[in-house]
């Protein structure tokens, strides 16, 4: 790797991290706005036009707040937990193909993705989301508080049980596309139509497990306000709380982007139509890549909206219902999905 490449990749990393932070800020605003609309309210509209600067004001406030560590807490782990959470959330962004190649320097193409052509991208994502449990479980345990511990334990149990179904539901997609490389999966879908039409069951399973993995309602047991005060982040304040919160929204956007990549055709605007030929553009030309980037972000944003919409519509699952759904319904369904996909593919070939 030469210096130019190193600098460009560093710049890309900086861009992606900042993009994630700003996206998370506006997702918080979107969450508050959508919840307000669903409840016939207006939502934040004072800070900046249409409340646009509300999240930044909130973050500023979090920076100024006192950082309280409970006397009985394990300080090192208490400080480490938010770092793990946010680091894991950011790492996933490295492999998400936000856009195709935009510029070419010294024969190497660069897009808005750090490692789009990584051949184990999908495995990296699954591995990283698993490590995310450590952040939450450590946060709950190191606080040395009952509510936090309950939240941490619940989240560990929930994330581990739903990870199985999540991983298994992806296998159907991998079987069809024959690759773990996200760009290749998107290219396959551009050529053959979106995976959601071939794998509707896997899409539903992935969606449900993604809700559980990101601790979103109706699976927000780790932070169930009415039962656990704040769940695993009860004992956090100031920017440490901010980081945990940010990681949560970062994970939400990452799951939405992954869902768009795996099932909704990634950056393909309309299924079963060759848009590049229709518009008379070269599929790898700059305007086409920009259109695709917009489409990808639009799909991810729509899925984020659905996440928020579901949160403000559905009540929370009970713990036993959660475990029943995960182990007795989603796991057998995803196994059946793999079997059927495998048999059909075998018969077709």
């Amino acid at each position, binding site marked *: 790797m030469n210096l130019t490449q190193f600098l460009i990749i560093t710049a890309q990393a900086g861009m992606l991290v900042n993009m994630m932070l700003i996206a998370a800020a506006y997702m918080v605003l979107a969450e508050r706005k959508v919840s307000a609309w*669903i*409840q*016939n309210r207006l939502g934040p509209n004072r800070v900046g036009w249409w409340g646009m600067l509300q999240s930044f004001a909130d973050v500023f406030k979090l920076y100024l707040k006192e950082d309280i560590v409970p006397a009985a807490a394990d300080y090192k782990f208490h400080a480490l937990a938010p770092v793990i959470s946010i680091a894991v959330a950011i790492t996933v962004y490295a492999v998400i193909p936000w856009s195709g190649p935009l510029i070419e320097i010294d024969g190497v193409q660069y897009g808005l993705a750090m490692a789009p052509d990584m051949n184990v991208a999908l495995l990296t994502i699954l591995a990283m989301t698993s490590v995310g449990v450590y952040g939450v479980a450590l946060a709950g345990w190191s606080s040395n508080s009952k509510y936090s511990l309950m939240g941490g334990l619940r989240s560990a149990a929930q994330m581990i049980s739903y990870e199985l179904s999540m991983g298994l539901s992806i296998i159907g997609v991998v079987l069809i596309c024959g690759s773990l490389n996200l760009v290749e999966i998107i290219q396959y879908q551009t050529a053959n139509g979106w995976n959601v039409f071939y794998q509707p069951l896997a899409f*539903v399973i992935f969606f449900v497990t993604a809700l559980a993995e990101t601790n979103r309602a109706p699976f927000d047991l780790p932070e169930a306000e009415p039962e656990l005060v704040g769940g695993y982040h009860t004992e956090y304040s100031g920017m440490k709380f901010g980081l945990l919160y940010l990681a949560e929204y970062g994970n939400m956007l990452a799951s939405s982007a992954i869902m768009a990549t795996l099932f909704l055709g990634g950056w393909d605007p309309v299924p079963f139509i060759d848009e590049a030929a229709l518009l008379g553009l070269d599929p790898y030309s700059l305007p086409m890549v920009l259109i695709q980037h917009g489409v990808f972000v639009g799909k991810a944003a729509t899925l984020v909206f659905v996440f928020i919409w579901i949160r403000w*519509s559905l009540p929370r699952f009970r713990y036993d219902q959660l475990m029943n759904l995960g182990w007795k319904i989603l796991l057998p369904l995803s196994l059946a999905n793999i079997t059927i996909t495998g048999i059909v593919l075998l018969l077709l070939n």
Partner: protein
Amino acid sequence: MANVKTNTEAQRMTFWERIYLPEIARGLGLTFRQMFKPTFTRQYPEERWIPEGSYRGRPVLVQEEEGERCVACGLCSRVCPALAIEVRAAETTQEKERYPEKFEINMLRCIYCGFCEEVCPEEAIVMSKDYELVFGSQEEGIFGKDKLLVPVSQLQERLEFLRQWR
């Protein structure tokens, strides 16, 4: 309890209800429709609510041209459940003979129950429409006669309401 019809688990819900997803979709549809309905939010500092005469806001003393109506009988102080009112009487040579030398309501204690207004024989203390009460210190929360006296013309609506329902 002979007429109780017992249902088995399977009879209670149909298959489509048991797989949840259609019902969830219906629920989501309901919340989606809510998003386009008009909001109830009042933009407070610009848009202020003006209460009806029946509203019990900050208690005030009625001020007439010759002075306050209050004759310092002390009934309001006596009836106040929160012990918020302090009255000290003094005598004058005027027709009414008595007036409150000191009349203080501790607005940090007041619970806006309206007992003082109910018990007052002179209609001298009434609940106003004022609901914007902010003070920077505990001392500021104790309202003396300077803040309590309000001209009778501003309290007509409340006085009429009281006469109507007395």
